């Protein structure tokens, strides 16, 4: 960097349509179309930022960044090579009216099939467009459709605010597919399954958020080079069992991931993090790439109103060879985790989480709902000797995360 003034502008426009469900009825509709824009001005080896919500233009943003009293941060980085590209996917003609009609039908189907359940939730159908331009020649745009819907359900008279949920995120709504895979679980909601303390095979229908967050934190350059993370000093070493491969997916339109560039304008490809158990890549932004004499991995993420932070996009375990229900059929007794949140994973990778909703399955058949319990293990064991297998598919067809089976300790409350 020198004293030459340059700038970049990140514009995030989101047009969204929301349907609200309260007490098993559609009760509200929301329309939003909000533009949020952030600018960075590079001057005297400093970066000065500004951010505006609503309609604006480059001149207004750059003037705001250069206003008297604004504070810069050190710009000890090499700006990316000029790049242009449009990575835009359409909603394939899906209209808001059609989404409303299909969602209403799906809700009516659930209401008639399960009249003793109460549903609350929301659907969001959005198209988010990200455009990054710079005085250095960046002009990059990505966009695509996104559906994010959930229905929390509770048994009538339940003291809980929810007894479970049906949820899906992706580029298409998948109403039928999502409801179909949940039907067997919903039908067993009133059947209690006996389970005792002990070690069980455990099926994770979705990855645990705490584990995802811990891996994300520890593979960033901040943590890796500080020596504090659980992967510190282990680049190129085998850290997990060979069946474990993890990628950071930013562009996978089939899952609704549309990012081909990061918040600094660095073009990127999907990145292997763990390959057959070997730790392959640390995540870098431009600043840390320069600091540690390497290349940015395109993980300098930035909101319209934030600085750069190093984060993965979507950590996704590579699928195995066998479908989850086929693996489940081979297991005499398996705990199926539907909702498990509130746990933690510490610096030594000891992991424990309470499980709010789980079912017991015997040779692939759902027996019934388990009582409140906790599960525990160590991540090195889960991704090592206690790994039963990573499935070929996700619970809801078309989602990015394959189901996974581990041997774990179960503690019934």
């Amino acid at each position, binding site marked *: 960097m020198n004293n030459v003034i340059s700038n970049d502008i990140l514009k995030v426009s989101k047009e969204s349509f929301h349907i609200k469900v309260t*007490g098993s009825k559609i009760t509200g509709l929301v329309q939003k179309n909000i533009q949020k824009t952030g600018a960075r001005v590079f001057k005297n080896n400093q970066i000065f930022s500004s951010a505006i919500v609503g309609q604006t233009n480059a001149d207004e943003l750059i003037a705001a960044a250069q206003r008297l009293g604004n504070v810069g941060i050190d710009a000890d980085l090499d700006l990316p090579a000029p790049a242009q590209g449009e990575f835009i996917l359409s909603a394939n003609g899906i209209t808001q009216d059609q989404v409303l009609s299909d969602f209403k039908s799906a809700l009516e189907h659930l209401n008639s099939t399960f009249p003793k359940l109460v549903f609350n939730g929301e659907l969001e159908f959005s198209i988010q467009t990200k455009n990054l331009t710079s005085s250095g020649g960046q002009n990059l745009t990505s966009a695509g459709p996104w559906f994010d819907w959930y229905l929390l359900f509770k048994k009538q008279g339940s003291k809980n605010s929810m007894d479970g949920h049906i949820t899906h995120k992706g580029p298409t709504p998948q109403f039928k597919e999502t409801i179909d895979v949940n039907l067997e679980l919903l039908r067993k909601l009133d059947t209690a399954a006996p389970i005792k303390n002990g070690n069980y095979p455990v099926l994770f229908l979705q990855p645990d958020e705490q584990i995802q967050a811990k891996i994300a934190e520890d593979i960033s350059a901040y943590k890796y080079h500080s020596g504090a993370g659980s992967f510190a000093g282990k680049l190129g070493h085998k850290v997990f069992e060979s069946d474990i491969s993890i990628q950071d997916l930013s562009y996978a339109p089939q899952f609704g991931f549309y990012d081909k560039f990061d918040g600094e304008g660095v073009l990127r490809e999907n990145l292997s993090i763990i390959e057959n158990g070997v730790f392959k890549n640390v995540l870098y932004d431009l600043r840390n790439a320069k600091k540690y004499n390497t290349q940015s991995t395109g993980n300098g993420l930035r909101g319209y109103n934030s600085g750069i932070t190093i984060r993965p996009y979507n950590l996704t375990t590579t699928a195995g060879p066998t479908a989850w229900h086929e693996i489940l059929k081979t297991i005499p007794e398996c705990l199926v985790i539907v909702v498990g949140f509130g746990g933690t994973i510490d610096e030594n990778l000891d*992991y424990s989480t309470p499980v709010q909703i789980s079912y017991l399955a015997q040779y692939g058949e759902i027996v019934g709902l388990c009582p409140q319990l906790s599960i525990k293990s160590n991540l090195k064991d889960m991704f090592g000797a206690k790994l039963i297998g990573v499935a070929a598919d996700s619970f809801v067809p078309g989602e990015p995360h394959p189901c996974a089976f581990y041997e774990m300790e179960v503690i019934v409350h």
Partner: protein
Amino acid sequence: MNIKDRVFNLDLSIIDCDYCDVRVEDVFEATIRINNGDLTTCLDQKTVGAFLRLKKNGMWLYSSITDLSQIENGLKDLAQKAKVFKSTETEIPRKNNGVHELVKHKENNYSKISLADKRDLVQSYVKIVNAVPQIKSSVIMYKDMYKIKAFKNSVGTAFEYDFNSGSFIVLFDLTEGENNFSDYQRFHGVQFENLKNKEAEMAAYIQESIPFLTAPTIEPGKYQVVMNPQITGVFTHESFGHNSEADFMLGDPLAVQQWRLGQAVAVPQVSLIDSGLHADSSGHCPIDDEGEISQKTYLIKEGILNGRLHNIETSNEMNEPTTGNGRAMNFEFEPIVRMTATYIENGTTPLDELYKKAEGGLYFQGYNYGSGMSTFTIAPVRAFRIKNGKASEPVRATVISGSVFETLMNIQAVGNDFDLNSSAIGGCGKMTQMPLPVAMGGPTILVKDMQVS
């Protein structure tokens, strides 16, 4: 034109609907982040936006806009869209709550402090972190907000209100050989001055954290547990507060019976409250986003279920008084039933007596995470064995969990101390609205038979 005049001068009687309201928010926010000593974010911004809400033919329609000249057109557009819906439901008329002007911080708020002064303050704390050789990785995050809201509805209620809040949090990872321990400390201030001169407190807290590097892990099992006010707060918020939000009972008359007011749900020493009236807290909300005045709501009074939290819709549906808990995260969202400052009232037991009763048990301080359904869970930061009437030996514990109702009946003592935990960083999440500023707290409490793992 300022937002109050713009909103108060709206003529909402011309909008063809059963009910409508407009909320305009003018928000100043600053964010600073220091990663391992490097300043990586330093930014302030101002946002002005309006949330439009209208009910007609049994359907709510909402819209968020940033061009305030389009408020009237936006409402007319929503009214037009509502024509396709049909409903036989009778809309319950809303009451006019009058006009309220509740702006208190106009002359002294976070928008008046320069970004350079904020950066200098945050950077001054880096040396405290750097002075500890065991700290290998750290993040200091600073966030503040000054928000003015102006509101008007079609039955005549109008208000202008402001909110001023700032915090910084220091997150640090201690490493020594193969041993690691992560911890954090958070500070909050309604005014910027409240965030200054924290060096000694920070240094002492970090030193107290070092013994946890070599602390043994606790055997999982049931323990007698002392919760500090922070843990009491997250238990109160997650376990009981969310279940007291009346919107989850809509469409479920049986749930109202299950949550029948007047039944015993806790030991008599327990009174549990939600109140938006605590002016020094991040849960301060003297008037909600529907124009309802906040109040002190006893959810549990001396062990008896006494109330629940309402917005206007749930209050009308359940024929119970409003409580001023219709809150929205910002101008992009509609008001739903949310907490404000939620806490257990302090009791009469002196702390030394409380610790004596807990001999052989565990003391928990601070939390990383809390969640609640019928079973609540808390991931604590620090744990100690209680020996000789005090928290003595540091130990490691991952999760505390228990049944909400059993735990409320298992409370053995309620301390005579009290602390309300506030923050401008993070907040409460519900549905898609996160983070909403809230506060939570209470006294130190003693609970028997808690699952620790």
